[in-house]
């Protein structure tokens, strides 16, 4: 679906007065209906147009979420879960109106079990908050999308980050969930046990379901021990291709690299400006190695040799914690930095993922699209996972920009699909990728649709996202 199509007014009924009254009686000033609050909850970090909900609720417990869900279900009102709104595919837009459940006030870390390497948190805890909480415990939570997203939002979008190549994505790191179903009933999935083969894997079903199957209120997460030794490095390359080939060989050799990020020249320029760095303006890899001191040294040596053979230059180390933090913060801000390449623009992003064996070919072809584009398009990504992004800055006043961006996106996505990849590596489906899902999944879509129908028969949970049910 094109952005313009999303603009199309959709029929929506006003919230029943009685429902508003009941919600207000329960939530008091934790129910907001002001235009400002609604607008703030009707947009994300993308170019999608603002589409506000009718009311915003700020529940503080699972019981409250369940109660709100029961009331909304009774009246057939849509419910949209909201973390901090950093998603980029129109996930939280209230295209059918309804009540937004902002979970940011459910922000308690409920338990940390150092011995068992796990923690239980409420959905509104953010990843940085959790890591601050873990400070001093010797453990950390690795998944780090660029934004300081909520754990609930990250679970709901199956987020990944810079070190997924070593630690996996939310898929591997969520052990259990508490979920409020479409009718307000509460279930617990998974648990702290590392293994259980009882029943279907509901945990992973809800992870990545983008608020369309249930509202996540609590999450049990797997934690990881702080590595004994960490070192980060940057390396510039003559071409994007040389950088990509270095990554591919690193992965194929089985080097357990912890982070491996590619930035093309434009991205490096943008990052230099945004984060006040002075990196050489050439395609770059940002890398990090975790392990024992000897292991880290050995991994780094191997990669350095590979890079040199492919023309890598200025292999530079960041061993100090502050230097590393600056480097990774700059990488996390790459999206924001690239948006500023063209002042006043909004960002249109693509997010594809291909098997690592096809990565070089895919990026080379994408680079040609970029050269032909009329605007400056930046390319960067978690190449160790075969995942990369384009940031296409569009001028909202020029419809031709949007069309061009959509055309580039279509080309990149269909290429990725041809290569056995996917249309979204980590940002999820939302509304932006809805159409591609059919192309990618074919028959599996009907199974997904049946799942949605079985779990949310009246299509009340974040309707119109991930899957199109009937007329949504």
């Amino acid at each position, binding site marked *: 679906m094109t952005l313009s199509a999303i603009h199309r007014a959709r029929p929506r009924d006003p919230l029943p007065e009685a429902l508003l009254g009941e919600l207000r009686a329960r939530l008091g000033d934790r129910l907001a209906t002001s235009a400002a609050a609604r607008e703030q909850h009707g947009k994300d970090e993308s170019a999608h147009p603002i589409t506000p909900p009718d009311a915003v609720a700020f529940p503080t417990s699972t019981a409250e979420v369940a109660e709100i869900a029961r009331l909304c279900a009774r009246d057939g009102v849509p419910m949209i879960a909201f973390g901090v709104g950093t998603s980029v595919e129109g996930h939280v837009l209230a295209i059918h109106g309804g009540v937004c459940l902002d979970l940011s006030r459910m922000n308690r870390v409920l338990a940390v079990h150092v011995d*068992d390497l796990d923690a*239980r948190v409420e959905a509104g805890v953010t990843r940085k908050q959790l890591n601050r909480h873990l400070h001093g415990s010797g453990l950390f939570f690795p998944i780090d999308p660029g934004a300081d997203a909520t754990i609930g939002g990250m679970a709901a979008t199956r987020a990944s980050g810079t070190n997924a190549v070593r630690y996996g994505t939310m898929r591997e790191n969520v052990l259990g969930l508490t979920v409020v179903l479409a009718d307000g009933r509460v*279930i617990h999935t998974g648990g702290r046990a590392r293994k259980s083969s009882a029943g279907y894997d509901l945990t992973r079903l809800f992870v990545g379901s983008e608020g369309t199957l249930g509202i996540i209120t609590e999450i049990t997460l797997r934690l990881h021990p702080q590595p004994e030794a960490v070192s980060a490095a940057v390396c510039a390359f003559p071409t994007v291709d040389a950088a990509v080939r270095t990554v591919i060989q690193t992965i194929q050799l089985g080097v357990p690299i912890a982070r491996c990020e590619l930035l093309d020249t434009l991205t490096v320029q943008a990052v230099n400006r945004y984060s006040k760095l002075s990196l050489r303006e050439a395609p770059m890899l940002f890398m990090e190695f975790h392990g024992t001191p000897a292991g880290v040294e050995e991994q780094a040596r191997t990669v350095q040799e590979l890079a040199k053979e492919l023309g890598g230059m200025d292999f530079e180390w960041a061993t100090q914690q502050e230097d590393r933090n600056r480097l990774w913060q700059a990488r996390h801000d790459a999206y924001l930095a690239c948006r500023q390449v063209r002042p006043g623009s909004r960002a249109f992003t693509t997010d594809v*993922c291909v098997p690592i064996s096809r990565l070089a070919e895919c990026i080379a072809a994408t680079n040609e699209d970029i050269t032909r584009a009329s605007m400056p398009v930046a390319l960067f990504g978690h190449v160790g996972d075969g995942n990369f992004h384009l940031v296409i800055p569009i001028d909202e006043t020029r419809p031709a920009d949007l069309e061009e961006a959509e055309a580039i996106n279509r080309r990149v996505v269909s290429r990725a699909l041809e290569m056995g990849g996917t249309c979204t590596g980590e940002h*999820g489906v939302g509304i932006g990728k809805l159409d591609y899902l059919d192309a990618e*999944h074919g028959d*599996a879509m009907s199974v*997904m649709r049946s799942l949605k129908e079985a779990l949310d028969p009246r299509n009340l949970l974040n309707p119109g996202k991930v899957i199109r049910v009937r007329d949504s």
Partner: protein
Amino acid sequence: MTAPAEQIAVDLERQREVVSALRTFLPESAVLFAQEDVKPYECDGLTAYRQVPMVVALPETEEQVCRILKECHARKVPVVARGAGTGLSGGALPLGNGVLLSLAKFMRIVQMDVRSRTARVQPGVRNLAISDAASPLGLYYAPDPSSQIACSIGGNVAENSGGIHCLKYGLTVHNILKLRVATIEGDIVEIGADALDAPGYDLLALMTGSEGMLGVVTEVTVRLLPKPEYAQVVMASFDDLAKAGEAVASVIATGIVPAGFEMMDQAATRAVEGFVQAGYRTDVAAVLLCESDGTREEVADDIRRIQEVMEKSGAVQTQVSRDEPERLRFWAGRKAAFPAAGAISPDYYCMDGTIPKKRLGEVLRRITAMEEKYGLRCANVFHAGDGNLHPLILYDANEPGAFARTEAFGAEILELCLEVGGTITGEHGVGVEKINQMCAQFSSAELAVFHAVKWAFDQEGLLNPGKAVPTLRRCVEYGRMHVHAGQEKFRSRFKVQGSRFKVQGSRFKVQGSRFKVQGSSNIGRPMNTKFPTLNFEPGTLNTEHRTRNIEH
């Protein structure tokens, strides 16, 4: 299991109908129905349950699988998929009114791709055959159930099997990328992707561990790993179970992720030593095996630290494997634990539950107490790193009453697992064996979600009915049975009662009507469809008693 469901007599007319329908596209040799031909399929690794199937189908192509499913779907004949039949929970137990669909002929490794380090294989390929084929390329398939010589990759997917190395390398779900699945309607669905992530709902995870109830796997793309450069194992002996349990927790707490971490108690090491001479001490309470793999430097670092921690935790002896043959010998004992139990006892019953690692010492102490109570011996092997316990209860089926005691013993062990915050099955699945305990582990809302998932794949409940997920009515009856018995609820749920097996027997007959219980709920009832209402009588499921692992 003392009185497993009475065998259901085959409806001969229906049998004829199904056989002739299948023979229109399958050769005669691929459709079995004579008693002597179908008898070998009457059970899986859980031999106490037996039932001859109405028909056995042995297709060779995916197209044939789809045709079989279409025919069965049209005729409302239930279908049970079968891989190698090594399952330990009765997942592949046939139905007397159903077709057993064997995937034994799907033995081909379709493709090995060194560059992307993946293998595309048919479902009947044996687990070990994948690693054997990948070996010349320097690669292997990581999950290694002890049954790996025999079990099929399709069965591994259906059970989400693990093995000694899954602590570091994950279970089946972490090591597969794509599946081709035939639905009950006979359509092929491709799920997953060659790339890291596939958008939309995680159907791959849903299929993995679904015990043949959602679809029939016809092809699996697995991830291969480079063989580690080097591996070494520390063998540590303890004179005290609690100390061994502490040592496990302490090693994990260092941040080292061992490639394998196993424990055996004295009964197990004695059985094993009599069987394969792996070099275990038999005069100690427990032996731990802890492996590290990677580059030589990493392994040397890890092994030194592991050894240190073991010694600090009170090991009476630690030994590091000096070379590859010795490393393999240390593991050979653990891998032979089940057959070794078989060698010292006429029968054994393998349990499977998980517990928090810290409670190990206590749990083993209480199991020892149960040995006296039931008058049976029990050997314990333990995937220590991930808290997965396999007590092997030794008994003699020919001794009157022994099996009943065994089962009661087993049920009490599972109860104990739940009580300390674990689960009732770590890796062997639910099958028919633990179906009643599912009512204890999951609430009615949770079971309703399971049913909703099942419905999305198989609306008429024709795929492996009666396994893995109990119907709500079954749970209601189960709950009522115990409430009526007037015993303390938690405890009573696990009591073995004769009537339980009555329920089980009739299960196969009550298709269709089985969902019809009263009450009301939305979930699981899509509009405009004939989905049976997933209802229950409010209050009859004593959900408040289930012990779940949620701590605050």
